[in-house]
């Protein structure tokens, strides 16, 4: 298949800054009801993340400036699914988030990616919603978590876009997102939370896949979302939550041999249900066909 190479080879990362309206609902000046977030801290953590991606991992970083009108625009992972040189611009579940895609679409075009849209609101793909945080691409296939934000139709659009790959749907329990309970930890490694819901999803994935993945189980759900990149320097990097945020999972990360572990805090974003990977889109522009 033209698009296949081992997972983790990325050259670019696209991020979007944290707006001052961080933690506030669009058009609503009130504090987010559930948790009080520390804007400055969130921005600092964001800075640490981007710094690590750029300087440690060595990716080219493209930062889209924050838009105060779009308080959730920093969750850039949701608005595009990128594989190879194709970028599927998604349709987020929340109506107010749908305008977040515009800036991202522009960047994708500038990067010479083939931009694919979800299609009309009406018609065949009408009612389809899809968010990137429900999509796990393993390098060999896609798993789409059917969640509160992503539905079957959305998954179908994704399957239609990335035809080379098997696209399997898996249930995501408890109102969470697929990427909250799992993420890639290496070319053939999936980091999985050990929660019951995650186990259920994992079982389903195991049933659906033709491939074999190593599963790295971590006790804390927060640890299950990490960012794996095999950087230009041919080293394996894993950006993961620091010990303060998931103390029990550290031993699991230590098991990854020859990895450069980059503890990256993400406490503020996680208060809003996001995690490390929510903050960036990873792209490989040095794609070779062989």
């Amino acid at each position, binding site marked *: 298949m*033209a698009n296949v190479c081992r997972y983790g080879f990325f050259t670019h990362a696209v991020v979007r800054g944290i707006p001052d309206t961080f933690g506030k609902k669009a058009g609503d000046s009130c504090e987010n009801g559930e948790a009080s977030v520390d804007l400055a801290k969130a921005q600092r953590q964001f800075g640490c993340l981007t710094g690590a991606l750029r300087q440690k991992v060595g990716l080219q970083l493209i930062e889209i400036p924050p838009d105060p009108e779009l308080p959730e625009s920093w969750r850039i992972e949701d608005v595009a699914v990128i594989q190879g040189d194709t970028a599927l611009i998604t349709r987020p579940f929340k109506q107010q988030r749908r305008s977040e895609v515009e800036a991202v679409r522009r960047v994708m075009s500038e990067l010479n990616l083939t931009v694919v849209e979800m299609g009309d609101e009406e018609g065949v793909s009408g009612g389809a919603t899809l968010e990137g945080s429900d999509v796990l691409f393993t390098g060999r296939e896609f798993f789409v978590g059917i969640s509160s934000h992503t539905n079957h139709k959305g998954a179908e659009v994704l399957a239609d876009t990335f035809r080379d*790959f098997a696209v399997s749907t898996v249930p995501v329990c408890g109102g969470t997102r697929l990427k909250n309970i799992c993420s890639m930890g290496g070319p053939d490694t999936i980091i999985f939370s050990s929660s019951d819901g995650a186990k259920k999803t994992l079982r389903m994935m195991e049933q659906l896949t033709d491939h074999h993945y190593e599963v790295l189980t971590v006790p804390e759900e927060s640890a299950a979302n990490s960012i794996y990149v095999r950087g230009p320097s041919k080293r394996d990097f894993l950006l993961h939550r620091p010990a303060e945020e998931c103390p029990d999972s550290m031993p699991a990360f230590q098991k990854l041999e020859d990895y450069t572990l980059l503890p990256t805090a993400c406490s503020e974003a996680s208060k809003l249900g996001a995690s490390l990977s929510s903050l960036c889109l990873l792209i490989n522009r040095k794609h070779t066909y*062989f």
Partner: protein
Amino acid sequence: MTTEAGSEKAEEVKEKAEESAAQTDQSEKATEETQEVTKAESEVNEKEKEKEKEGKEGKGISRYLPTWLKKQKSQSQTSPTKEAPPAEEPDSKVTQEEEAPAPEVNGHAEEVEEKEEVKSEQVREKEESHSNASADTEPVKEEKVEESAEKSPEETKETTEGEGAEEEKKGQQPEGEAEGGEGGEGQTSIFQSPLRLVRKSKMKLVVCHVTLLDGTDFTCEVEKRAKGQYLFFKMCEHLNLLEKDYFGLTYIDTHEQKCWLDPTKEIKRQIRSNNWQFSFNVKFYPPDPSLLTEDITRYLLCLQLREDVASGRLPCSFVTHALLGSYTLQAEFGDYEPDQPRPLDNIGQLTFAPNQNKEMEEKILELHKSHRGMTPAQADAQFLENAKKLSMYGVDLHHAKDSEGVDIMLGVCANGLLVYKDRLRINRFAWPKILKISYKRNNFYIKIRPGETEQFESTVGFKLQNHRSAKRLWKVCVENHSFFRLNAPEPPNKARFLTLGSKFRYSGRTQAQTRLASSLIDRPAPKFERTSSKRISRSLDGAPMISITEAENGREPHLELHSDSKVKEVDVSPGDAEATSLQSPGPSEADLSQDHDKTQDEVLKHQANISQLKRSFMEAPPPSPPQPNQWEKRLTSSPATTIRIQQQQVVSVPETEAAAADNTVSDTKEPAKLNLHRLFSPNVALTTEVEIEETVVVQEVSRAAKPGLVTVTPIPPAEPTTEQETSKQEVKAEEKVVTVGKEEPKKQESVSSESESEEEAEYHPNVSVSISHTQIPEEKEEEEEQEDDKRGEQEVSAPDALSLPAEVSKPEEEANRVEEDAGAEKKTDAEEKEDERETEESTDDPMITPDEAPNGLTLPEEGETGMSAPAEEEEEPKVNGEASLVEVEQRPQVICCSEPPVVKTEMVTISDTFAAQKTEIATKEVPIVHTETKTITYEAAQLDGNDGEPGVLMTAQTITSESLCTTTTTHITKTLKGGLSETRIEKRIVITGDCDIDHDQALAQAIKEAKEQHPDMSVTRVVVHKETELAEEED
């Protein structure tokens, strides 16, 4: 010494067979053989055999079904060769029929044994070297010489022995012959057998039109009653294709559905219309095309995939379309030539994608430029490397509805069954997870192995459009499972896993077999023309045709490489990359051909050197030596079994009765049968010493065999270890054997139910363990405990035996590993561990049941530690029940004599429960309708309501004479209940014959024999099931 001589002979025979032109017959082979041993006599015998075969098949359609059965029992009979028998000696035939009643065979068995022992070594060697039937026949002939006076009885023996020895080889021969011949130089010799079929009959000829993968039409005449095989072989001959097992012929049925032509059935009966129109297609998409041996095979696969992609059947992304298209261009047109009229002009006329547009064509051209210097073969290989990764590669989709009526697609592929809703994969059932596949009317069911958390297996049902589509899906499943998961096809007559009503089984070679066979291909890369490019070049450029030869290809693993490279140099001398010049229109065909000639000469020389390998390929008993071993492993579980297994390996024909059956079993994968005879027959109490000796022999053999394999095939490491292990294990085995020997006489029953389950389970798709799971461990333990209770100490000995088989089988396993990318290493480890474990267990732990271990081993993916085994065991009861039922229904006659000595047990043979279910299903679904069935049951013993253990299939024996085929199957179940040990022996004798059989006499004889063998037992029940075939019916 003996061994060597035998092997040489075998080789010689093979060689000759190869050399012999299209006309070569078995008779010729026989003649050759005779030179070495007994000439004239052997010939006669051979002919007789042929006649026998004829007789069986000779009856034409009416005999059709029986033929199948026969084939299954002794596969050799069904082979094309046999079908093509010379119809000249009716007399002998008759004589044989008269003289060769099944019972007689048994009587002679002992006599034969002596000789067999001596020869056994030879046989083994041959087996391992993939010798063909001719080689096997030798022993028989020798005997004949000695006993020449008594022709008829001898013949019987011969048959038996021959089968025994040849079973493995013969079973494969049908295919092996055809392919073997091909191995020669793609000559027609291979196809002789199929051709012969036609020859004998005086039927009308029909013109068949076959659409080839390159879009051209192939027309040929076949006899009206020819089987699918015939046409298919003709096709392969025409295409010069050796690795043909991946391909098949399709036809459009009266309902506009595309169906696979069953090679074993008459074409006329399948197409059901007078439209003799077929197309040649890839039937099994090799998961890793790079493992194909020949470029021509890859080329054909490419053609199929190009069509799949262009038609949208194989969906892929824009980029992939472009990439695949660019490889197609490179393969067909060679390097991108900026000066020449741009291929872009042509490109519009080529279809690369369902929705091809200018953008894509430009992308294709752009990528094409980057392939400069790539030979056509390399381009094909790259094409395949990319295509194989597509998620829908090799997935055969069928429309269906789920239980809620939602439209879904069921995809059958190498790994299992996939469920799609729209484009989304919503479920997947790997073959190892599927316990049973069935269909009923328009419903299609799969029974799923319980997961770790579940207690019971579940059945998932799908609705298909109609009965036909359900059956078609079922067939595809059976075939795919067999091809990709089994080491050898399951014999159709043993209706187990998949069968309810249909006897249908995959009859060709499995992937493992075909790989083994093709690894032995030694011929110059065949020259073939890329027709499409030729076409294009003419139409567009008016340029000379481009003929591309395989010789260019640098990918050939073999020596041919050298020749190729030379060729290239010569041709390309102008300077370009090797391939380039060839591909370009420039070099005329003449040049090419010259080069080819050179190449061929060189290759031929080379060939001479490797002739041995070649021979082996020709006979290419794909089932390969390893299989028996695996079976043996399974069998090994019981102590008794162990012994037998060893014997089998060592002395293939020790006991006439047993031998035949045993071999057959090994070939066919019916492990259970092997055991039978020993247990039942007085022979059971074989002296320990003898066995030990045999064991030793095995050692040698195994060692010897491995090196050979290694040379030919890329066999992974771990062998040294294996050998060492082997030796150790063997030693242990000897000790234990002794133990066993003592115990056996008393307890024939020792074989546990588990072992049977394995057998029965054979066809259950459980062959392997899926990546994910662990489910089984728990169950396993439980099972073990149970087993322990049942068996006690006896079993301890078994493991040893296991060790041997395991080792022997390794070559095979290794081959398997190659196939299976994932966890190859793990498997190895696992296997080793298993071996170790078993060994240990054998020594002292009663805890770990030998049975389980064997199970694990048996599974193709044994590496995964037989996790699946336990699960299999669970189902045993059902399986057995099913099996027995099915058999009863299908077989012409079933006679069951069961005799619990002091114990009462329920009869597994025909369990009412299952019977009820099955009958129902069978009646409705059975494809083969025209059958007359009569069942008579004599019952002496009362059956207890207890769920009994499923019977253990102890032995199977097949005795074949011209007109009669007798198969004896014995199930022995031993149960420990409250300190009482129950032993139930169930013996099933199947007599199949074309002509009139004196059923009563046969029955009486069978009962008599059974009683003789077990004087202290009483016959509890006799079931006579008579099935007369009225006509063949399919689909």
